[in-house]
């Protein structure tokens, strides 16, 4: 069976077609989860916020604030905003350690802790970038996507992605200082 054309699918989503919404969730939930996981470093919170992204999508349809250009880019922006809200709320202070560290590591504990700290600092600094910069930096470096892949997902040209990459890295470097990672 051929996959449903996305534009057709999204029109059905706007009509609250359950099958279309399920299809969209199945297509995008893993990507959004991956993005949230990399931004938050916590699988449980990332799972929760993944569903919240799609609930926000449904609410936006009701209030006619839905996407106008790139649907996936719009979803990512919702996810970014949720991450920002999450950090602002201070809820992360109640969470346990980031759960993506020290898995089968051969590093010395001190080095590992130092690396973990640097990683944590980097994640927080990414949150201080503009939403477009943080999106591009996350997708490119934490998820390993190419410029072309990121461009499709966020609905921009590859040239714009290249520019965002440069400015994002420059800003990130400023934010974390001159220290070596």
């Amino acid at each position, binding site marked *: 069976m051929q996959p449903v054309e996305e534009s057709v699918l999204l029109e059905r989503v706007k*009509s*609250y*077609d*359950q099958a279309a*919404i*399920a299809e969209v*969730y199945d297509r995008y*939930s*893993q990507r959004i*989860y*991956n993005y949230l*996981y*990399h931004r938050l470093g*916590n*699988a*449980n919170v*990332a*799972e*929760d916020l*993944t*569903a919240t992204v*799609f*609930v926000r999508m*449904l*609410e936006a349809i*009701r209030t006619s604030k839905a996407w106008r250009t790139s649907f996936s880019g719009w979803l990512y922006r919702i996810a970014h905003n949720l991450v920002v809200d999450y950090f602002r709320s201070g809820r992360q202070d*109640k969470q*346990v350690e980031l759960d*993506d560290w020290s*898995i089968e590591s051969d590093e010395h504990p001190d080095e590992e802790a130092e*690396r973990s700290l640097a*990683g944590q600092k*980097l994640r927080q600094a990414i949150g*201080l970038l*503009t939403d*477009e*910069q943080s999106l591009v930096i996350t997708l490119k*470096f*934490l998820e*390993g996507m190419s410029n072309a892949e990121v461009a499709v997902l966020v609905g921009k*040209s590859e*040239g*714009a992605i*290249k*520019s*965002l*990459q*440069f*400015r*994002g*890295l*420059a*800003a*990130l*470097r*400023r*934010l974390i200082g*001159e220290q*070596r*990672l």
Partner: protein
Amino acid sequence: MKVGSASNNQVRSLEDALNACVRELSTGASLEDCLTQYPGYREELEPLLSLALGLQSLRQQPAPATLQAGRRRVLREAARLGRGRSESEPRFRLPSWLSLQPLMQRGVAATVLASLLLVIVLGGGAAAVAASSLPGDALYPVKRISEEVRLLLAFDQQLRAQVIQQLEERRREEAKAIASIRRVAEVSFRGAVEEVDDDRWTIGGVPVELSDKTVLIGDVDLDTEVRVHVRSLSDGTLLALRIEPDAGDDALLPTPTDTPPPPTPTVTLTATNTKLPPTSVVQQQPVPSQTPSPTETPLPTETEVPTATPTPTITLTPVPPRPVKVRFGGRIEAMEPGVWTVDGQAVRLDSNTKIGPQDVPPVIGAMASVVAVRTDDGGLLALEITVEPVAQATEQPFEFQGLVERFGATEWVVGGHTLIITTDTAIENAPQIGLLAEVNALRRGDGSLVAVQIHVQLPSEVVQFEGTIQSLGAVQWTVEGVTVRLDDQTQVVGNAAVGSRAEVEGLLLPDGSVLARTIVVQAALTPTLTPEPSEARSEEPRLTPSLTAEQATGEAADMPDPPLELVPRAPQVPLPARPAMTGGAAQPSSGYARRDAPQKLVR
């Protein structure tokens, strides 16, 4: 004066070099290999590429996620919001693993075989370890999958009911277990409300705590069977996020407005012929339906309730749907006539809506708790809104770092936060858009932030580049795609015009823009239009002929190359030639007037 090593090149080329190096690093090239290819950019590239490598070292396969629970939540929300729309469209799609009817159509045998294969592949070892796993464990998804397989293989109604009962019990045990080991995770389980002590409830033998964020749906009393979604906190508390009446496994029951599927023995659970232990909780909300609704298999509970009967009661009489009550709280964000927005949710008000207390006038920014009902269109109608006095809210310290986005005498925006500046605000160093600032503020009861201290971090890295002026503004230009900011220390030499070449020397800001210290402008580009001299003479010189809204707000730097828009000028006064301008030839100026430099300057 040449300061940066990239003095004769453009930042755009640095972007290209960075992009090429990032691509090569991802294919295994070493940092040194990349830097060797671009000796002119070595100094600029090295820290950025080191950072890129640091970011890449964080790359890991995400922990496995069980997104099915989220899928159910989204579809439930969609069903609620979409209620009232065309009835001809399918209303609800069961989660694939529970949707037995499609499975029957696709062939149960194939599904069961696939499931058995899964069990075999997972094998005894992994499955055994997974069986004792808890939410947050790597093998927990395996446990859930094996449970789904068990449920799929339970063809017999009685056996299926027992499996469901065991799984529900397992969820409750998991909730208690993650609380006891103080793991932060989320889980949902089902049980009867056994005890209510203010914000401490006991549900199915599991103590949970409610907060003002807890969403309580419907009428919940003692003995009501509910599904509760909890988050365990690091102090061992189980914080209830959402509590709603649940007459059984909702995935197995059609929603009230669903067209009931043809009766299928595999999806209809009848409690009358089950030999499960008697339950103490029998009062359930009947599911309204055109046909007799399937009812749940009751669960045993440890609490003895005097009203318990040995067999469950099955109510088959359809009743109209009961209004669903919703309680939530948050900040009042908007107050339109008849519609308020509280904590991001729009809620309608009518003449029956009670707003109180009377001595507390509701204002935007105040905290409020709302009791509302869901209306047929899926919206919320407020029954009661309790407003918290703003004055009672205490000021909370709030410290953060962010880029200066806007600044003025009374208000700044830093890192997306709007700050109120008072005469007591201590500001260290001169602000500039794009600079990093450390902020020490107080969050007031109405949510506003009052800046106590702002330390603006001054940039130190000097860069120099040359390119075409693409837009001009009083405080911001775009030169060769780079946002160039000007302040009262910026010196502009020459007559600036869109299309002219300019050499920029300045400080690299954290957002990638450049705070210009010196801009040396060459001649304008050759015109593409020849205006009527008389018209042109009457035209006032425009300083920002091609400034778009986005460019004006500083967004231009992140956009693809904007097209140049040249504004013709009548009096043709040749620009003074600037000899020895590095990297750019002087452009003919015929057809364009000299443009007065827009600002502070000059020599």
